[in-house]
Every structure is written in structure tokens, then in C-alpha cells.
């Protein structure tokens, strides 16, 4: 089952995502954490997109997202499609302003809203690397 999940994930990203999602995961695979930036509007957009939703010009530029941020909220899943229990996930507000859902590498009981967290990577398979965050000690 786990093998099948891994196998269909890359298909799924291509099928349900778009060219920017594919590129985002290609960057992550190389441990690069970036999103798209509109030169015309001088604005960062997350999730990444091919076209700026403000001026609809193509965004050729990808900019770094901060590798540090603040834990906005978190929970733990009893059951998860990908990770076994305990599967701690949270919303992190990056220091560059983006909010994202991520895996948190710490026991649920040790977490607090507002904690400082730092980027780490989890390799899933040859195509997929995901971001995750750990509390800053």
C-alpha cells in the first residue's frame, strides 16, 4: 500500500497540480525552497503559479522562502495516508510571510502556538522530497 501511494503521488501532482506545482516539487527534490515572484507587481505568490493572479503576466522568477518561521497551529492525526502515527502536522507562518501546511518533527505534547521553527527536508522517494519543520531549540 505504501509503495502504491508513493507511486501514484507524482502522477497525482502532475494531474491535479499545474506546471508550477511540478517545478515546486522539482526544487524541493534539490532541497531548494522557493515560490514564484511577479516582477511587475513586485509581489511573492504562494502557492506558486505560472501566471501572476494580479497582472496575469508570466512569473519567470522563483524566490527563496524563509527557512524559519512561527508555528501558527498544529494537530496530530490518528490516521494518515502517508505517515504512520504519530503524524504531527501544523500550519507554519514563514518569516517571508507565506503560510503553509507541513509536517512537524516533534511530539505533539512538546509544541506550543507561536514557537519558532526551522526547515528540514524529508525524502519520500526518487521524485518527492517534502518540507518539514522542527522547533528551534
Amino acid at each position: 500500500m505504501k509503495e502504491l501511494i508513493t507511486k501514484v503521488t507524482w502522477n497525482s501532482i502532475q494531474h491535479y497540480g499545474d506546471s508550477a506545482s511540478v517545478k515546486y516539487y522539482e526544487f524541493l527534490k534539490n532541497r531548494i525552497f522557493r515560490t514564484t515572484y511577479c516582477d511587475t507587481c513586485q509581489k511573492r505568490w504562494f502557492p506558486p503559479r505560472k501566471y501572476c493572479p494580479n497582472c496575469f503576466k508570466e512569473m519567470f522568477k522563483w524566490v527563496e522562502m524563509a527557512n524559519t518561521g512561527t508555528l501558527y497551529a498544529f494537530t496530530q492525526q490518528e490516521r494518515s495516508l502517508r505517515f504512520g502515527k504519530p503524524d504531527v502536522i501544523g500550519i507554519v507562518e514563514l518569516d517571508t510571510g507565506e503560510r503553509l501546511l507541513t509536517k512537524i518533527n516533534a511530539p505533539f505534547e512538546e509544541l506550543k502556538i507561536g514557537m519558532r521553527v526551522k526547515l528540514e527536508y524529508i525524502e519520500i522517494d526518487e521524485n518527492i522530497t517534502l518540507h518539514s519543520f522542527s522547533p528551534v531549540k
Partner: protein
Amino acid sequence: MRRRGRKRRKNVAYVAGVSMTPVTRTLGKPHKEVAAELLAEALEDAGLEKNDIDTLVVTPPNLAGPPSFMFVCALAEYLDLRTKHINMVECGGTSGAMAIKTALNEIFLGRTEFAAVIAIDQRFDLQPGQVDINVFMHEALQTQICLYGPYDSLYGIGAPIPYYAMSAQRYMEEYGATEEDFARVAVMLRNHASKNPLAEYRDPITVEDVLNSRYLSPPLKLLDCSPFASGGACVILANPYVTRPLPKPPVWITGVGEWHEPDHFIPQNGSITSFTSVKKSAEEAFERAGMEPVDVDVAEVYGVFTATELMIYEDLGIFPPGEGYIAVKEGKATYGGNVVMNPSGGRLSLGHPAAATPVMEMVEVVRQLRGECGERQVPGARCGLVHAEHGMLNGSIVFVLEV
């Protein structure tokens, strides 16, 4: 509860007939047969014949499952229904409400006298003749893996519970609510459901039962959540220019409001304890109706989790921000209080067949406003509200109903 004289307004319609199934684990029969039964019951309730219906709007038979190619056309054939408008509407949790709104628009266009809206949801795996999921596991997984988008889904989001759990956690942090406060919501809704023969969960529960139920996604426990269920409902909407006398008094839809924020689940900037879509859709619906939140006697809202239910009460303007849980604690949201919220038992205890839920909400409010609810009747109810949402309350619809 203040009363105002009814003004003459454009764009009103009324509900002429309603029907709904009990909420159960499975309906145990094909969608088309359920639809035929629901339509027959609603027509009888309205005192109408099938040929009076000139618009048919439905929701897809499998809301989050495989597509249901041209289901509404197959259904029209099955019912031998000639229509000026036919449509199948899907927008996540608001689907049933969007179907009602689509039918209302046909009435407002002046093209339709009577419109039937039918919404049925049946647990995918419990449908008769359902293909064994193991046979097409690959496709099913590929759909499931990105159901919550290519960014969130990869973290194992297979159901919306974690989003709402984090929303509940923030609510506790921001307003000082506790898990016990959430448990009181579940108990209140169960009390309401105990008097509703159509409800899936009717046995009384205590705050301790809720607190002792297992965590699905903390702080949300099993009894804070509404499990998947099956059920269907139908409403027949009427053009106000229809002059023919009908057996039951009309229940007027006097206000409609809708709003969608572009965030898909997690907002990039906005709060996750208060939602623009609920506020804006409620403000619009109240303004169109010439009513205010204080005028509402009875409401059915799309609170799929206990904590979410409270946030909806607040964003509708029925209770002040951060005070929903205090209102429930003080008995203000139940019989004998300011307003009765979810007299049907709500999503938690009536049960939650997602596509059908908004239509079931309207059925309950119509029956309340007609005074047909027996043991769970809200005394003297004159003004009702129906709310539905999709995403993590990224979008909402509100209807104000009056007799």
C-alpha cells in the same frame, strides 16, 4: 426578538413542498429510486403534480467520489420530467445550497413556476452494486492523494478534520474556550436530535462521554465530529406570481447571501477562527430580507465540528465574536434561549450526508416555520436561517426564511 413589517421586495420566492429521508448509514437503494420517492413526497406536501415542475436541479450522487456523468439527465428520463431548466451543481459542502440558489435564479428570471431541488448523498462504499474499491485502487488513490490540493494533500490530509482541528485549537488559544466547552455543543445537539425521528444519533450523551471519546485530531474527538452518512432531501420552490392556492402556507425565502474567498482551505492571511465568507453572506442575506441576526428564531447551520459550529454562530452575528461557547454554556442557543440552533440535531447528531445537508437544513427550517415539528417545535418561530459552507469556510451561503 424584534418584529418588522414585511416590505414588498423583488427577488423573493417561497418553499411550497419539502421531503427528506432519515439519515442512516446507507439508503440501501439506487439514487434514482430515492429521488423518485423524495419528489413524490415533496409534491404531495406541496399539493402539486409532477407536470407542474419546470426546473430540476440536483447535486452529484457521489460528492467526493468519481464523477457522475450526466446523472441529472438520466434522472429526468427516469422521472419522465419535461423541464425548462435542468442542472447538476457541485461546490463541495455548499452543493445542496448552490442547487437551491440555481433553482431560485430560474424563478427570478421569470422562467420557472415550480422548481424541484433534489440532493442525495450515499456513502460511496455502501452503494448497491458499487465497484469494489480494490479493483480501481490506483485511480482512487490518485484522486484521494490530491483531493486537498497538491500542497496540503501530500502531508497525509485525507479528510478535512486536521484543518478544523487547528481552527479549534486557535479558537481555544484566542478566546479561552476549553474542550469541555466544545463537548457542550455536542451534548446540546444530541438533545435536539433525541426528539427528531429522522436523526441518525438519538441516544443522549454527556459532556464526559464526549471528553472520553478518542482523539481523531486533537483537540477534536470522535464525538466532536460528524461522521459520513447517507440521506436525501427535496425542496420545491415556487414563483411568487403563481396565483393558484396551495394547501400549506408559503415559507418565504426573503434573503439570500453568498461569498467566496479565494483561499482553498488554509487562508494565506485571514483568520481560521472567523470567516469572511460567513460574515459577508449573512450580512447580505439579512440586508436583502430587511432583518437582523436578533430576529432569527431558528437556524440550521453547517457546523461539521463542535468548534466550527460556534465560530459560525459568531460570524452569522447571532452571538458576539468569541462568545459562542459562553452562549451555549448559558443555554442561549437552545429551547428557552435566544434562538434554537440546529433543532434537527445538526450535522453532529442528525447526521451529515454532505451533498444533502443544506437541503435537509432548509427542510427542517421550513417545517419549524410551518409549526410541524411536534416535540422539537421551536415555539412561535417566524424567522429562520439556513447556512452552508465549503472548503474550510472559504465559501458560504445564507438563506433567510420567513412566514
